[in-house]
Protein backbone atom coordinates (compact mmCIF):
# COMPACT_ATOMS: atom_id res chain seq x y z
CA UNK A 1 0.00 0.00 0.00
CA UNK A 2 1.24 3.51 -0.78
CA UNK A 3 0.97 6.38 1.72
CA UNK A 4 -2.25 8.40 1.60
CA UNK A 5 -2.15 12.14 2.28
CA UNK A 6 -5.03 14.37 3.33
CA UNK A 7 -4.26 17.32 1.06
CA UNK A 8 -7.41 19.30 1.68
CA UNK A 9 -10.09 19.62 4.35
CA UNK A 10 -13.28 21.62 4.68
CA UNK A 11 -16.49 21.82 6.60
CA UNK A 12 -19.47 24.08 7.04
CA UNK A 13 -20.69 25.17 10.47
CA UNK A 14 -22.91 22.52 12.05
CA UNK A 15 -26.25 24.02 13.08
CA UNK A 16 -29.88 24.01 12.01
CA UNK A 17 -29.58 24.85 8.30
CA UNK A 18 -33.11 25.29 6.97
CA UNK A 19 -31.94 27.07 3.80
CA UNK A 20 -29.63 24.31 2.55
CA UNK A 21 -30.54 20.90 1.18
CA UNK A 22 -28.40 17.89 2.08
CA UNK A 23 -26.71 17.95 -1.33
CA UNK A 24 -26.09 21.73 -1.02
CA UNK A 25 -24.28 21.08 2.25
CA UNK A 26 -22.24 18.20 0.79
CA UNK A 27 -21.27 20.41 -2.16
CA UNK A 28 -20.25 23.36 0.04
CA UNK A 29 -18.03 21.19 2.25
CA UNK A 30 -16.64 19.34 -0.77
CA UNK A 31 -15.69 22.57 -2.54
CA UNK A 32 -13.92 23.82 0.57
CA UNK A 33 -11.80 20.66 0.72
CA UNK A 34 -10.99 20.89 -3.00
CA UNK A 35 -9.99 24.56 -2.65
CA UNK A 36 -7.99 23.87 0.51
CA UNK A 37 -6.06 21.26 -1.51
CA UNK A 38 -5.35 23.81 -4.30
CA UNK A 39 -6.93 21.27 -6.64
CA UNK A 40 -7.98 23.79 -9.30
CA UNK A 41 -9.42 22.02 -12.35
CA UNK A 42 -7.67 18.69 -11.78
CA UNK A 43 -10.10 15.79 -12.13
CA UNK A 44 -11.22 13.76 -9.13
CA UNK A 45 -11.19 9.98 -9.67
CA UNK A 46 -13.80 9.02 -7.09
CA UNK A 47 -16.22 10.54 -4.60
CA UNK A 48 -17.38 8.75 -1.44
CA UNK A 49 -20.31 10.17 0.49
CA UNK A 50 -20.88 9.14 4.09
CA UNK A 51 -24.57 9.47 4.93
CA UNK A 52 -26.83 7.38 7.12
CA UNK A 53 -30.42 8.15 6.28
CA UNK A 54 -31.11 10.69 3.52
CA UNK A 55 -34.02 8.53 2.38
CA UNK A 56 -35.72 8.77 5.76
CA UNK A 57 -34.73 12.32 6.72
CA UNK A 58 -34.90 14.06 3.34
CA UNK A 59 -36.75 11.77 0.94
CA UNK A 60 -33.74 11.66 -1.34
CA UNK A 61 -31.37 8.80 -2.16
CA UNK A 62 -28.41 8.38 -4.56
CA UNK A 63 -26.91 11.49 -3.05
CA UNK A 64 -23.38 10.68 -4.27
CA UNK A 65 -24.62 10.80 -7.87
CA UNK A 66 -26.38 14.08 -7.10
CA UNK A 67 -23.19 15.50 -5.57
CA UNK A 68 -20.86 14.84 -8.54
CA UNK A 69 -23.44 16.55 -10.73
CA UNK A 70 -23.61 19.63 -8.48
CA UNK A 71 -19.80 19.85 -8.33
CA UNK A 72 -19.26 19.01 -12.01
CA UNK A 73 -17.00 16.13 -11.07
CA UNK A 74 -18.36 13.76 -13.74
CA UNK A 75 -17.32 11.17 -14.82
CA UNK A 76 -15.81 10.45 -11.38
CA UNK A 77 -16.92 7.24 -9.68
CA UNK A 78 -19.42 8.01 -6.92
CA UNK A 79 -20.70 5.93 -4.03
CA UNK A 80 -22.79 6.64 -0.97
CA UNK A 81 -21.53 4.73 2.07
CA UNK A 82 -24.11 3.91 4.74
CA UNK A 83 -22.74 2.55 7.99
CA UNK A 84 -24.94 4.08 10.66
CA UNK A 85 -23.16 6.67 12.82
CA UNK A 86 -19.84 5.37 11.43
CA UNK A 87 -20.82 6.28 7.84
CA UNK A 88 -18.32 9.15 7.76
CA UNK A 89 -15.47 7.01 9.04
CA UNK A 90 -16.39 4.28 6.56
CA UNK A 91 -16.34 6.80 3.70
CA UNK A 92 -12.85 8.01 4.73
CA UNK A 93 -11.68 4.39 5.01
CA UNK A 94 -12.95 3.57 1.52
CA UNK A 95 -11.29 6.68 0.11
CA UNK A 96 -8.09 5.68 1.85
CA UNK A 97 -8.22 2.17 0.34
CA UNK A 98 -8.86 3.57 -3.15
CA UNK A 99 -5.72 5.74 -3.02
CA UNK A 100 -3.55 3.31 -1.05
CA UNK A 101 -4.25 0.52 -3.53
CA UNK A 102 -3.27 2.67 -6.49
CA UNK A 103 -6.73 2.38 -8.04
CA UNK A 104 -7.33 6.13 -7.63
CA UNK A 105 -5.00 9.12 -7.32
CA UNK A 106 -7.42 11.79 -6.13
CA UNK A 107 -10.50 11.02 -4.02
CA UNK A 108 -13.02 13.38 -2.46
CA UNK A 109 -14.73 12.11 0.70
CA UNK A 110 -17.74 14.02 2.01
CA UNK A 111 -19.91 13.17 5.01
CA UNK A 112 -23.19 14.87 5.75
CA UNK A 113 -26.63 14.59 7.27
CA UNK A 114 -29.64 16.89 7.35
CA UNK A 115 -31.60 15.85 10.43
CA UNK A 116 -33.52 18.99 11.37
CA UNK A 117 -35.89 18.61 8.44
CA UNK A 118 -37.96 16.42 10.78
CA UNK A 119 -39.15 17.11 14.33
CA UNK A 120 -37.18 15.79 17.33
CA UNK A 121 -39.20 12.63 18.13
CA UNK A 122 -39.17 11.69 14.42
CA UNK A 123 -35.36 12.13 14.30
CA UNK A 124 -35.11 9.93 17.40
CA UNK A 125 -37.23 7.28 15.65
CA UNK A 126 -35.17 7.43 12.44
CA UNK A 127 -31.94 7.03 14.37
CA UNK A 128 -33.51 4.12 16.32
CA UNK A 129 -33.96 2.27 13.01
CA UNK A 130 -30.36 1.07 13.44
CA UNK A 131 -31.43 -1.09 16.40
CA UNK A 132 -32.62 -4.70 16.05
CA UNK A 133 -36.12 -4.58 14.50
CA UNK A 134 -37.67 -7.34 16.66
CA UNK A 135 -35.47 -7.53 19.73
CA UNK A 136 -35.13 -3.76 20.30
CA UNK A 137 -36.95 -1.33 18.02
CA UNK A 138 -40.52 -2.46 18.77
CA UNK A 139 -40.05 -1.66 22.45
CA UNK A 140 -39.39 2.00 21.72
CA UNK A 141 -35.70 1.79 22.40
CA UNK A 142 -33.75 4.91 21.42
CA UNK A 143 -30.02 5.51 21.19
CA UNK A 144 -30.14 7.53 24.43
CA UNK A 145 -31.95 4.52 26.00
CA UNK A 146 -29.13 2.15 24.97
CA UNK A 147 -26.67 4.72 26.31
CA UNK A 148 -28.72 4.92 29.53
CA UNK A 149 -28.55 1.16 30.10
CA UNK A 150 -24.82 1.17 29.28
CA UNK A 151 -24.15 4.17 31.53
CA UNK A 152 -25.91 2.52 34.49
CA UNK A 153 -23.68 -0.55 34.20
CA UNK A 154 -20.51 1.48 33.66
CA UNK A 155 -21.23 3.68 36.69
CA UNK A 156 -21.90 0.60 38.80
CA UNK A 157 -18.76 -1.24 37.67
CA UNK A 158 -16.19 1.56 37.51
CA UNK A 159 -17.49 4.15 39.97
CA UNK A 160 -18.19 6.74 37.27
CA UNK A 161 -20.50 9.42 38.71
CA UNK A 162 -22.88 12.01 37.28
CA UNK A 163 -20.20 14.56 38.19
CA UNK A 164 -17.78 12.81 35.84
CA UNK A 165 -20.35 12.72 33.04
CA UNK A 166 -21.03 16.43 33.52
CA UNK A 167 -17.30 17.21 33.44
CA UNK A 168 -17.24 15.84 29.87
CA UNK A 169 -20.15 18.10 28.92
CA UNK A 170 -18.64 21.19 30.57
CA UNK A 171 -15.21 20.60 29.00
CA UNK A 172 -16.53 19.93 25.51
CA UNK A 173 -18.94 22.86 25.51
CA UNK A 174 -16.08 25.07 26.67
CA UNK A 175 -13.99 23.79 23.75
CA UNK A 176 -16.95 24.35 21.44
CA UNK A 177 -16.81 28.07 22.28
CA UNK A 178 -13.37 28.10 20.61
CA UNK A 179 -14.67 26.37 17.48
CA UNK A 180 -16.62 28.54 15.00
CA UNK A 181 -17.93 25.36 13.33
CA UNK A 182 -19.54 24.03 16.54
CA UNK A 183 -23.34 23.92 16.79
CA UNK A 184 -23.54 24.58 20.53
CA UNK A 185 -21.92 27.85 21.54
CA UNK A 186 -22.81 27.94 25.20
CA UNK A 187 -20.85 27.70 28.41
CA UNK A 188 -22.43 25.47 31.03
CA UNK A 189 -21.44 24.90 34.65
CA UNK A 190 -21.38 21.89 36.95
CA UNK A 191 -23.77 23.74 39.25
CA UNK A 192 -26.30 24.54 36.52
CA UNK A 193 -26.45 20.90 35.42
CA UNK A 194 -26.24 19.17 38.80
CA UNK A 195 -27.07 21.18 41.92
CA UNK A 196 -28.89 24.40 41.03
CA UNK A 197 -32.61 24.42 42.02
CA UNK A 198 -33.39 24.65 38.29
CA UNK A 199 -30.94 21.88 37.31
CA UNK A 200 -33.79 19.47 36.47
CA UNK A 201 -35.16 22.10 34.07
CA UNK A 202 -31.77 22.92 32.55
CA UNK A 203 -30.84 19.29 32.00
CA UNK A 204 -33.94 17.08 32.24
CA UNK A 205 -33.83 13.29 32.11
CA UNK A 206 -33.77 11.89 28.57
CA UNK A 207 -33.20 8.21 29.41
CA UNK A 208 -32.20 7.88 33.06
CA UNK A 209 -29.36 8.11 34.08
CA UNK A 210 -28.75 10.09 30.88
CA UNK A 211 -29.76 13.76 31.02
CA UNK A 212 -30.05 16.34 28.26
CA UNK A 213 -26.49 17.60 28.73
CA UNK A 214 -25.16 14.06 28.42
CA UNK A 215 -26.41 13.96 24.82
CA UNK A 216 -25.11 15.47 21.59
CA UNK A 217 -27.50 17.82 19.80
CA UNK A 218 -29.37 16.99 16.57
CA UNK A 219 -27.63 18.92 13.80
CA UNK A 220 -27.36 19.57 10.10
CA UNK A 221 -23.90 19.71 8.56
CA UNK A 222 -21.23 18.35 6.27
CA UNK A 223 -17.45 17.88 6.27
CA UNK A 224 -15.00 16.81 3.57
CA UNK A 225 -11.43 15.65 2.99
CA UNK A 226 -9.46 15.35 -0.23
CA UNK A 227 -7.18 12.32 -0.30
CA UNK A 228 -4.25 11.84 -2.63
CA UNK A 229 -0.70 10.55 -2.97
CA UNK A 230 2.36 12.18 -1.44
CA UNK A 231 3.65 13.20 -4.90
CA UNK A 232 0.45 14.95 -5.87
CA UNK A 233 0.17 16.63 -2.45
CA UNK A 234 3.68 18.00 -2.97
CA UNK A 235 2.75 19.22 -6.47
CA UNK A 236 -0.27 20.96 -4.92
CA UNK A 237 2.12 22.47 -2.34
CA UNK A 238 0.06 21.27 0.63
CA UNK A 239 1.35 20.29 4.07
CA UNK A 240 1.71 16.53 4.42
CA UNK A 241 -0.68 14.92 6.91
CA UNK A 242 -0.88 11.18 6.29
CA UNK A 243 -3.42 8.58 7.31
CA UNK A 244 -0.91 6.40 9.14
CA UNK A 245 -3.32 3.83 10.50
CA UNK A 246 -6.88 2.64 9.92
CA UNK A 247 -8.71 0.08 12.04
CA UNK A 248 -12.26 -1.20 11.98
CA UNK A 249 -14.07 -3.81 14.04
CA UNK A 250 -17.61 -4.97 14.73
CA UNK A 251 -19.56 -6.43 17.65
CA UNK A 252 -23.00 -7.98 18.25
CA UNK A 253 -26.04 -6.05 17.06
CA UNK A 254 -27.68 -6.01 20.50
CA UNK A 255 -25.97 -4.95 23.71
CA UNK A 256 -27.55 -7.84 25.66
CA UNK A 257 -25.69 -10.51 23.69
CA UNK A 258 -22.26 -9.25 24.80
CA UNK A 259 -20.90 -11.36 27.64
CA UNK A 260 -19.85 -8.11 29.38
CA UNK A 261 -22.00 -5.25 28.02
CA UNK A 262 -19.54 -2.68 29.46
CA UNK A 263 -16.74 -4.12 27.31
CA UNK A 264 -16.62 -2.23 24.00
CA UNK A 265 -14.61 -4.86 22.16
CA UNK A 266 -14.96 -3.24 18.75
CA UNK A 267 -13.43 -0.02 20.12
CA UNK A 268 -10.47 -1.94 21.53
CA UNK A 269 -9.85 -3.94 18.37
CA UNK A 270 -10.35 -1.08 15.89
CA UNK A 271 -7.97 1.11 17.91
CA UNK A 272 -5.34 -1.62 18.23
CA UNK A 273 -5.47 -2.21 14.48
CA UNK A 274 -5.03 1.49 13.72
CA UNK A 275 -2.15 1.81 16.19
CA UNK A 276 -0.40 -1.31 14.99
CA UNK A 277 -0.64 -0.27 11.32
CA UNK A 278 0.75 3.19 12.12
CA UNK A 279 3.54 2.04 14.42
CA UNK A 280 2.43 4.84 16.76
CA UNK A 281 1.47 4.03 20.34
CA UNK A 282 -1.37 5.54 22.39
CA UNK A 283 1.20 7.39 24.53
CA UNK A 284 2.53 9.15 21.41
CA UNK A 285 -0.87 10.63 20.50
CA UNK A 286 -0.99 14.41 21.01
CA UNK A 287 -4.69 14.99 20.34
CA UNK A 288 -7.76 12.74 20.09
CA UNK A 289 -11.26 13.18 18.70
CA UNK A 290 -13.58 10.62 20.30
CA UNK A 291 -17.22 9.84 19.58
CA UNK A 292 -18.95 11.45 22.57
CA UNK A 293 -22.53 11.08 21.31
CA UNK A 294 -23.16 10.54 25.04
CA UNK A 295 -20.81 11.76 27.77
CA UNK A 296 -20.14 8.23 29.04
CA UNK A 297 -18.72 7.31 25.64
CA UNK A 298 -15.82 9.77 25.84
CA UNK A 299 -14.77 8.17 29.13
CA UNK A 300 -15.33 4.56 28.01
CA UNK A 301 -13.64 5.08 24.62
CA UNK A 302 -10.62 6.79 26.18
CA UNK A 303 -10.09 3.57 28.14
CA UNK A 304 -10.94 1.03 25.44
CA UNK A 305 -8.77 2.84 22.85
CA UNK A 306 -5.80 2.34 25.15
CA UNK A 307 -5.15 5.84 26.52
CA UNK A 308 -6.11 4.93 30.10
CA UNK A 309 -6.67 1.62 31.83
CA UNK A 310 -10.24 0.57 32.63
CA UNK A 311 -11.71 2.69 35.37
CA UNK A 312 -9.02 5.38 35.03
CA UNK A 313 -10.63 7.45 32.25
CA UNK A 314 -12.90 9.32 34.64
CA UNK A 315 -9.97 10.04 36.96
CA UNK A 316 -7.85 11.42 34.11
CA UNK A 317 -10.79 13.58 33.10
CA UNK A 318 -11.28 14.87 36.66
CA UNK A 319 -7.54 15.63 36.87
CA UNK A 320 -7.80 17.82 33.77
CA UNK A 321 -5.59 15.57 31.63
CA UNK A 322 -8.05 15.64 28.73
CA UNK A 323 -8.43 19.42 28.53
CA UNK A 324 -6.65 21.52 25.93
CA UNK A 325 -3.24 21.99 27.55
CA UNK A 326 -3.54 18.67 29.40
CA UNK A 327 -1.53 15.50 28.78
CA UNK A 328 -3.96 14.19 26.15
CA UNK A 329 -6.49 16.77 24.95
CA UNK A 330 -9.69 14.95 23.95
CA UNK A 331 -12.23 16.64 21.70
CA UNK A 332 -10.67 20.11 21.42
CA UNK A 333 -13.29 20.69 18.68
CA UNK A 334 -16.02 20.32 21.28
CA UNK A 335 -16.68 16.76 20.14
CA UNK A 336 -20.10 15.58 19.12
CA UNK A 337 -21.38 17.18 22.31
CA UNK A 338 -20.72 20.75 21.14
CA UNK A 339 -19.79 20.52 17.45
CA UNK A 340 -22.95 18.49 16.84
CA UNK A 341 -23.59 15.10 15.31
CA UNK A 342 -25.04 15.27 11.80
CA UNK A 343 -24.64 11.52 11.70
CA UNK A 344 -22.88 10.88 8.38
CA UNK A 345 -20.68 13.96 8.79
CA UNK A 346 -19.16 13.08 12.14
CA UNK A 347 -16.44 10.59 11.14
CA UNK A 348 -15.22 13.03 8.49
CA UNK A 349 -15.44 16.08 10.76
CA UNK A 350 -13.25 14.33 13.34
CA UNK A 351 -10.56 13.83 10.69
CA UNK A 352 -10.91 17.45 9.52
CA UNK A 353 -10.32 18.67 13.09
CA UNK A 354 -7.23 16.47 13.44
CA UNK A 355 -5.78 17.83 10.18
CA UNK A 356 -6.28 21.40 11.40
CA UNK A 357 -4.65 20.47 14.71
CA UNK A 358 -1.68 18.72 13.03
CA UNK A 359 -1.14 21.61 10.63
CA UNK A 360 -1.29 24.13 13.48
CA UNK A 361 -4.40 25.77 11.98
CA UNK A 362 -6.84 25.17 14.84
CA UNK A 363 -6.86 28.76 16.11
CA UNK A 364 -7.80 29.31 19.75
CA UNK A 365 -8.28 25.60 20.39
CA UNK A 366 -4.87 24.62 18.98
CA UNK A 367 -3.07 21.83 20.84
CA UNK A 368 0.52 23.12 20.81
CA UNK A 369 2.97 21.11 18.74
CA UNK A 370 0.55 18.31 17.86
CA UNK A 371 2.14 15.77 15.50
CA UNK A 372 0.10 12.58 15.97
CA UNK A 373 -3.69 12.49 16.13
CA UNK A 374 -6.30 9.80 16.77
CA UNK A 375 -10.00 9.67 15.91
CA UNK A 376 -12.70 7.16 16.74
CA UNK A 377 -16.07 6.94 14.99
CA UNK A 378 -18.53 4.74 16.91
CA UNK A 379 -21.42 3.17 15.00
CA UNK A 380 -24.58 1.59 16.34
CA UNK A 381 -24.03 1.13 20.02
CA UNK A 382 -20.46 0.02 19.49
CA UNK A 383 -21.28 -2.60 16.87
CA UNK A 384 -19.21 -0.95 14.11
CA UNK A 385 -16.22 1.18 15.02
CA UNK A 386 -13.56 2.88 12.90
CA UNK A 387 -10.33 4.38 14.20
CA UNK A 388 -7.72 6.51 12.44
CA UNK A 389 -4.19 7.52 13.36
CA UNK A 390 -2.99 10.63 11.55
CA UNK A 391 0.58 11.92 11.42
CA UNK A 392 1.98 15.27 10.36
CA UNK A 393 5.18 15.08 8.33
CA UNK A 394 6.08 18.74 8.37
Amino acid sequence: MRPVVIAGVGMIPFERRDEDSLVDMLAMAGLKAMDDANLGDRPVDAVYVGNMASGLFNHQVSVASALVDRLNLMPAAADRIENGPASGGSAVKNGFLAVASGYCDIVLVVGGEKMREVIGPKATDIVACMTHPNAEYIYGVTLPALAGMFTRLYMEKYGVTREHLTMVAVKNQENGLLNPYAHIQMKITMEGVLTHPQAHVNSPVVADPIHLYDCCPVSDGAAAVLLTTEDIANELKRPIVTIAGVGQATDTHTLQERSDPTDLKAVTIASQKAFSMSGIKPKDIDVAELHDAFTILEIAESEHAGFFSKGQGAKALAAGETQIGGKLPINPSGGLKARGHPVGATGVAQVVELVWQLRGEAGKRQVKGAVNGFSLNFGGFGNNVIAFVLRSKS
Partner: protein
Amino acid sequence: MNTITAYKCKKCGLVMYPHHFRCLKCNGREFEEIKPSANGKLLTYTIIEQLPWGIDERERVLGVVEFDNGVKALGVIKAENPKLGMKLKAGWEPVRVIGGEKVYGLSFQPTK
Protein backbone atom coordinates in the same frame (compact mmCIF):
# COMPACT_ATOMS: atom_id res chain seq x y z
CA MET B 1 -48.64 -17.65 26.83
CA ASN B 2 -47.11 -16.19 23.69
CA THR B 3 -43.51 -15.12 24.01
CA ILE B 4 -40.28 -14.75 22.06
CA THR B 5 -38.40 -17.64 20.46
CA ALA B 6 -34.77 -18.06 21.49
CA TYR B 7 -32.23 -20.42 19.97
CA LYS B 8 -30.02 -23.03 21.60
CA CYS B 9 -27.04 -24.22 19.55
CA LYS B 10 -27.28 -27.99 19.03
CA LYS B 11 -23.48 -28.25 18.95
CA CYS B 12 -22.26 -26.17 21.93
CA GLY B 13 -25.45 -25.31 23.82
CA LEU B 14 -25.11 -21.51 23.64
CA VAL B 15 -28.45 -19.78 24.10
CA MET B 16 -29.02 -16.86 21.74
CA TYR B 17 -31.65 -14.21 21.20
CA PRO B 18 -32.27 -12.80 18.62
CA HIS B 19 -31.68 -15.25 15.75
CA HIS B 20 -28.29 -15.77 14.10
CA PHE B 21 -27.53 -18.01 11.13
CA ARG B 22 -24.28 -19.17 12.77
CA CYS B 23 -23.70 -19.75 16.47
CA LEU B 24 -21.90 -16.80 18.14
CA LYS B 25 -19.56 -19.24 19.85
CA CYS B 26 -18.94 -22.26 17.58
CA ASN B 27 -20.42 -21.30 14.16
CA GLY B 28 -22.90 -24.18 14.47
CA ARG B 29 -25.90 -23.86 12.15
CA GLU B 30 -28.49 -26.00 13.88
CA PHE B 31 -30.54 -24.66 16.74
CA GLU B 32 -33.25 -25.90 19.02
CA GLU B 33 -36.03 -23.33 19.35
CA ILE B 34 -36.61 -22.64 23.04
CA LYS B 35 -38.92 -20.43 25.09
CA PRO B 36 -37.63 -18.28 27.92
CA SER B 37 -38.51 -19.50 31.41
CA ALA B 38 -41.26 -17.73 33.36
CA ASN B 39 -39.00 -15.61 35.57
CA GLY B 40 -35.73 -13.74 35.33
CA LYS B 41 -33.64 -10.96 36.85
CA LEU B 42 -33.05 -7.38 35.75
CA LEU B 43 -29.54 -6.83 34.36
CA THR B 44 -29.86 -3.15 33.46
CA TYR B 45 -32.59 -0.60 32.75
CA THR B 46 -33.35 2.94 31.71
CA ILE B 47 -36.32 5.24 32.27
CA ILE B 48 -37.03 6.89 28.92
CA GLU B 49 -38.57 10.34 29.23
CA GLN B 50 -38.10 11.31 25.58
CA LEU B 51 -39.84 8.59 23.61
CA PRO B 52 -39.59 8.27 19.85
CA TRP B 53 -42.31 9.22 17.40
CA GLY B 54 -44.99 6.54 17.44
CA ILE B 55 -45.08 5.90 21.19
CA ASP B 56 -47.67 8.06 22.87
CA GLU B 57 -46.50 7.77 26.47
CA ARG B 58 -44.82 10.22 28.81
CA GLU B 59 -42.41 7.71 30.26
CA ARG B 60 -41.42 4.10 29.69
CA VAL B 61 -38.98 1.85 31.52
CA LEU B 62 -37.00 -0.57 29.35
CA GLY B 63 -34.59 -3.13 30.67
CA VAL B 64 -32.59 -6.21 29.81
CA VAL B 65 -33.70 -9.35 31.67
CA GLU B 66 -31.81 -12.61 32.04
CA PHE B 67 -34.30 -15.45 32.29
CA ASP B 68 -33.62 -18.37 34.61
CA ASN B 69 -32.81 -20.56 31.55
CA GLY B 70 -30.19 -18.13 30.24
CA VAL B 71 -32.17 -16.28 27.56
CA LYS B 72 -31.48 -12.54 27.65
CA ALA B 73 -33.95 -10.07 26.17
CA LEU B 74 -35.04 -6.45 26.26
CA GLY B 75 -38.57 -5.65 27.38
CA VAL B 76 -40.88 -3.13 29.00
CA ILE B 77 -40.36 -3.08 32.78
CA LYS B 78 -43.51 -2.44 34.80
CA ALA B 79 -42.03 -1.85 38.22
CA GLU B 80 -42.46 1.26 40.37
CA ASN B 81 -38.87 1.25 41.57
CA PRO B 82 -36.69 -0.80 39.24
CA LYS B 83 -33.51 -2.15 40.83
CA LEU B 84 -30.59 -4.04 39.33
CA GLY B 85 -30.94 -7.76 40.09
CA MET B 86 -34.66 -7.63 40.96
CA LYS B 87 -36.73 -10.74 40.15
CA LEU B 88 -39.27 -10.30 37.37
CA LYS B 89 -42.05 -12.35 35.82
CA ALA B 90 -42.55 -12.16 32.03
CA GLY B 91 -45.74 -11.15 30.23
CA TRP B 92 -46.72 -10.57 26.61
CA GLU B 93 -48.62 -7.50 25.46
CA PRO B 94 -48.84 -4.85 22.74
CA VAL B 95 -45.69 -2.70 23.01
CA ARG B 96 -46.03 -0.48 19.95
CA VAL B 97 -48.44 0.32 17.16
CA ILE B 98 -46.74 0.21 13.77
CA GLY B 99 -48.74 1.02 10.63
CA GLY B 100 -51.98 0.83 12.62
CA GLU B 101 -51.17 -2.68 13.82
CA LYS B 102 -50.48 -3.69 17.43
CA VAL B 103 -47.04 -5.25 17.81
CA TYR B 104 -46.63 -7.61 20.76
CA GLY B 105 -43.54 -7.97 22.91
CA LEU B 106 -42.20 -8.81 26.36
CA SER B 107 -43.24 -6.98 29.48
CA PHE B 108 -42.07 -7.70 33.01
CA GLN B 109 -43.56 -7.30 36.47
CA PRO B 110 -41.97 -7.88 39.85
CA THR B 111 -42.56 -11.38 41.22
CA LYS B 112 -44.78 -11.30 44.27
